[in-house]
């Protein structure tokens, strides 16, 4: 067999797999269309050199998945412990395995009066977990927390290099090895508001049509290569033609 035939097949199969991966990503985005603070993922491809044979290289596709840290729509909810970050930054949360980061500001108070996430992890202020023991809670735009008019702490809002943030599920991000957090220079906190998911259904549906057609096209490619092979097997060397 000639190398170019096999290569065509190989590349088609790779593309099929990549399109499947793209569908997985789109579906996950769509499933989280109502998850507060959710950041969507996009799939991009870049050219990569692969070793084709011992002394030949070929150009193939490398799959890249990037989290898009674009601001989601901020919705008014009127619940006093719903906090939305407008601008850059994440809330710091004390997870069971260390500090985690989230944009999902649907907080509550637990039975001890600590400000916690929907999963019960304490939200961290500059002085650690925030205890709210009074009746009325006001959160200033700079993150200052006032309980019955008395300032008790300030919410820690931090940023990190987006490439160094890893999704962990439960609306949490964690820092990848080597990444560091820093105080966010540019944010505003909105009390009684919730940041929704930044997934745009129209974009995702278009992606889905596009990937479906790409998948179909590659299937045709595989068929074409197969037809060539078929001809080669039946016709080459045949005396009658």
């Amino acid at each position, binding site marked *: 067999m000639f190398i170019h035939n096999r290569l065509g097949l190989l590349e088609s199969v790779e593309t*099929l797999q990549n399109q*499947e991966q793209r569908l997985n990503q789109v579906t996950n985005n769509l499933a989280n269309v109502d998850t507060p603070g959710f950041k969507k993922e996009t799939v991009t491809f870049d050219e990569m050199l692969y070793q084709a044979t011992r002394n030949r290289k070929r150009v193939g596709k490398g799959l890249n998945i990037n989290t898009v840290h674009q601001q989601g729509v901020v919705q008014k909810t009127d619940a006093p412990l719903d906090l939305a970050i407008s601008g850059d930054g994440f809330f710091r949360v004390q997870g069971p395995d260390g500090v985690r980061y989230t944009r999902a500001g649907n907080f509550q108070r637990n039975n001890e009066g600590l400000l916690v996430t929907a999963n019960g992890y304490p939200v961290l202020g500059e002085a650690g977990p925030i205890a709210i023991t009074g009746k009325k809670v006001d959160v200033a735009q700079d993150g200052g927390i006032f309980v019955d008019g008395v300032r008790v702490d300030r919410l820690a809002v931090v940023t990190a290099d987006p490439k160094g943030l*890893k999704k962990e*599920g439960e609306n949490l991000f964690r820092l990848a090895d080597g990444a560091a957090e820093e105080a966010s220079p540019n944010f505003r906190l909105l009390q009684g508001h919730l940041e929704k998911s930044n997934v745009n259904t129209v974009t995702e549906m278009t992606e889905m049509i596009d990937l479906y057609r790409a998948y179909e096209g590659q299937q045709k490619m595989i068929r074409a290569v197969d037809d060539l092979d078929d001809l080669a097997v039946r016709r080459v060397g045949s005396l009658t033609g």
Partner: protein
Amino acid sequence: MIRSLFSGRSGMTGQQLQLDTIANNLANVNTAGFKKSRAQFEDLYYQEIRAMGTETADGGRVPSGIQVGLGVKPTSVQKIFTQGSLTETGNDLDWAIEGSGFFKVIRDGQDYFTRAGAFSLDGDGNVVTQNGDRLQPEFTVPQGTTSIGINSNGLLTAKDAQQQVLGTVQITLHSFINPGGLRSYGANLFQETLASGAPTEANPGSDGLGTIQQRFMEVSNVDVTEELVNMIITQRAYEVNSKAVTTADKLLEVANTLVR
């Protein structure tokens, strides 16, 4: 491929829960003291195919890696304890709480808490809820009472036709550090849980508690417009998730026709 079938399904299941919550809110749009609920979601765990930051063959670092999310899961259906609006009823035993706090009632020997202040008298003259659960502290209206008054600080006074005071009692309210953690029991009642914390008792108007408005009723805090908009969003979200499942199915079909 199989992943997107399941993450699409998780999205559809989540939206069903959302719709259940909305439907229950809408069903209780006229229930006194009802507090709306809100379904909340979080992303499921991520499967790591290529870790970010790992070293590549030529010594560089993989900048963004490949993580595939596995869908969505509901975290909680949270009660939103915002104030419902007050409507005047003219009934002496309709008491609305303006502000935070709950009345305590006893049913089958257990403590329950409610904001539905539409009380009545039972055959023995006890102040009870519409289901016959006695308000705490218990008060039996004396014989000959013609009017019952309660001031904004919860002092209940029973008077006869000559405006003579026949009996008084101080009605108290109860507050929780995390009212969102109360268990909804049905019948407008809430139950204390470990998450809500223990109730603290105080007189209305003190200690940050609300005041009592006699002859008013607190209506449900459900906003019909908001719920209907949420219902549209839910329906569309359900639809797009089902489309994702269909697309996954179509890809499988295309793959199946590869072999002739």
